[in-house]
């Protein structure tokens, strides 16, 4: 079928098979920040935003994006870079393979939650696995990032 969708603000028409998953379609189209870590919707690496909300692109049929807005991390250069500066200040990115999906979820979280507690942050991000970092450094980075956002908004 012909999938008509918007990816990172650009209108696209892509020829897909009915049972293609969004993750594979996006990677084929060159959105290489989208990673695959599993086949069962368990790791969160393939997270993208569909109409602004985080979804797992490995278990979403591409056809479901018809007429919708897809965002990958490339769509948030400013936020991603700012968050990256907090991550790197902590040394929280190790292999970095989990980072794009994780960063996108963090960006979605900051738009969704006001002043979350640590528990709320952990809960929101629990679906995003990381095998390298032990998570604690990521939490430190998120806290500092949220602090900056708060100060900007004041």
């Amino acid at each position, binding site marked *: 079928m012909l999938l008509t969708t918007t990816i990172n603000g650009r209108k696209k028409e892509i020829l897909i098979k009915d049972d293609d998953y969004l993750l594979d379609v996006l990677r084929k189209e060159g959105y290489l920040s989208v990673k695959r870590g599993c086949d069962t919707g368990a790791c969160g690496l393939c997270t993208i935003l569909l109409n602004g909300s985080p979804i797992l692109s490995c278990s979403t049929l591409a056809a479901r994006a018809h007429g919708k807005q897809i965002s990958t991390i490339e769509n948030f250069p400013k936020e991603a870079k700012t968050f990256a500066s907090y991550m790197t200040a902590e040394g929280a990115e190790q*292999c970095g393979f989990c980072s794009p999906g994780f960063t996108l979820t963090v960006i979605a979280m900051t738009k969704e939650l006001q002043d979350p507690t640590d528990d709320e942050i952990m809960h929101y991000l629990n679906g995003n696995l990381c*095998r*390298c970092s032990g998570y604690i450094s990521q939490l430190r980075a998120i806290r500092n990032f949220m602090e900056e956002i708060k100060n900007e908004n004041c």
Partner: protein
Amino acid sequence: MKIVNTSVRKVDGVGVVTGNPAYTEDLILNNNVLTIKLLRSPHAFAKIKAIDTSIALKVPGVEAIFTHNDVPETRFTLAGQSFPEPSPYDRRILDEYVRYVGDPVAIIAAEDERAAEKAMKLIKVQYDILEPILDFEKSIDSHILIHPEEVHTNFEIGYERKRNIASKAYSEKPGVEEGFVKSDIILERTYYTQPQIHAMMETYRSYSYFDVNGRLTTVSSTQIPFHVRRHLARALELPTSKLRVIKPRVGGGFGGKQTAVCEIYSAFVTLKTGKPSKIIYNRKETHTCTTTRHEMRLDVKIGSDLEGNIKAIDINVLSNAGAYGEHAPTVTSLVSYKTFPLYDTVPMRFNANIVYSNTMNAGAFRGYGATQGTFAVESIINELAHKLNLDPTEIRMKNLVEPGEGKYITSGDIKKCIEIGKEKFNWIEKSQVREVAPNKVRAAGMAVTMQGSGIGGIDTAAATIKLGDRGDFSLMVGVTDMGQGCDTVLTQIAAEVLDVPMDKISIHSADTDLSPYDPGAYASSGTYVTGNAVIIAANKMREEILKGASKMFNTNINEIEYLGNNLKIGNNLISLEDFAQRSISFEGMNQITTTGTWGGETSPPPFIAGFAEVEVDTLTGEVEVIDYLSVVDCGTPINPNLVQVQVEGGAAQGIGLALLEDIKYDKKGKPISDSLMQYKIPSRLDCKNIRVEISNSYEKTGPFGAKSVGEVVINTPAPAIADAVYNATKVRVRKLPITSEKVLLGMFDL
């Protein structure tokens, strides 16, 4: 020191966080590559009687299908070890025997995954199904023979094919028998450690193509590019000069990518078809058809006087190599190598058999046998402390090594780590058993460990530095950054010696055509071994610059001073940029490149004292780690932030080993923990409070006093948590992982 010992940001950090293409799959530029899928054995042990691929080959889009009839006879090992590898040469690309559920039977190359999968279903295989050995404790002298063929070993490793023994290991510090005679108390215990899956986020993958010069190039997510090239040469029966291996960024390895799990398939397909090809293991294959940590049974006997002075320790190990013997002789030896020096005055004996079985094969995994040894030895010392009514920290203070000149351990201080830990962890209070709510009990436990920094007397690494035409430097190394940050740490070291800001140096790693030789990233060698090579190369670079300037300006070398960004010649300053430009030009005709090579006699150990506080739910047996503290001594850290995160991540993986991670097989030997749903790794909620303290010391053979820290980090959680659970419940779990079920059933039995 300006740059070393500071927490600079990683050189590639922003790029990876913002999703720049960097990993193997991102770099497949040809959108017409063959996709490889492997047909895998459904049986744990079988002989292939016949394979019919004729119908499968008719599937549109299928390019080729290969079986054991099409591959070279040569046997090899895929272990990432320096040549001559100690591991047995016990595999072929495809064999007529399959030795575990998932062992490859046929290689299918097709235009896409759909076609490959369709063809896979149409391959007809007739198996002669054989009785497997699924329980490694039944392997030795079984009537079943796992490797009926002759197997070559490069030297004596205790290989006894007819008894299913892949290797044996033995070591001894004399006085064990006398020690037991002098003991007032003797304990004998059996511990089991489970196979563990690396579960790195980027699964195994490689991509191969012929370059314009007709050389077979393989791009792979690997920790060991130079070893992979050697494996490929042997397996494909090609000269090494025809092969090139490139390692892009690696999405996690943890030792898994120290075995060349998948490269032979893409290289073989490209060799045969002439076309570019790729193989990407899915999560299921990664969890069922790669390598695991060696599963072990450790029988330990300890003798002591009533004051807790340990008189002797005897360790007998049975270790499961699985179907193939990658890393079989070396991993298990670390049970002794990394526990003997820690209790250096205690007589100790270690005896091990490493056996074949029809399970997934074992290989390297962060900690590399020290993890298993630490669990057993630290657990029995904790058990001894309880028997003698001693505080576990006290018994260690009585027996642990004191560093000293001429000893195996000359720097660092594990006792100091314990002291720091006791205070920062609030050990006195937390080691008391406390009921914090109805049915919720808290208690604590601790353990210590050591590892090494590189493989002393064997591994040798090189680093090359090139002065660019505008006064910047390229640093070329063959070690591989898989997230631990060695690209950054090595850049820091080079910048420090060359006295320039880090952004004047670009690091390149690794490409077997361009990088100087390096055994790769394993055995905690990045900072220590390659770091030392970088220092040599950088010092040579300073010398060569001075020599070049002396010639160019016709000045005595003693009158030139190297100032990093500038050279001081008499009273004049000339910028390095200017010098470099002129040096490379017609004026100088001098491209300055230097190489340093380094290998150490010793492998100075980093230390950790680990402290765990757990909360056990006495109704469900559920164990939660409330607080975990690692006090680490890795000499002088080159980058304290990276050390800290490395330690936190290792602790998390150790908590996974202690509480969650378990490979389960069904009755027929088929692994059922084949996804991240079934095989649980720690999530954010399991790692709420992991803390790190750094105890600084100075290792004089290390770069700027540093030792490596990659592996030591994973060893303490299991024994510390096991003892904490015992303190809280009086249930002693000796078989990892410590699941709620085991704790609960243990409480019923009390």
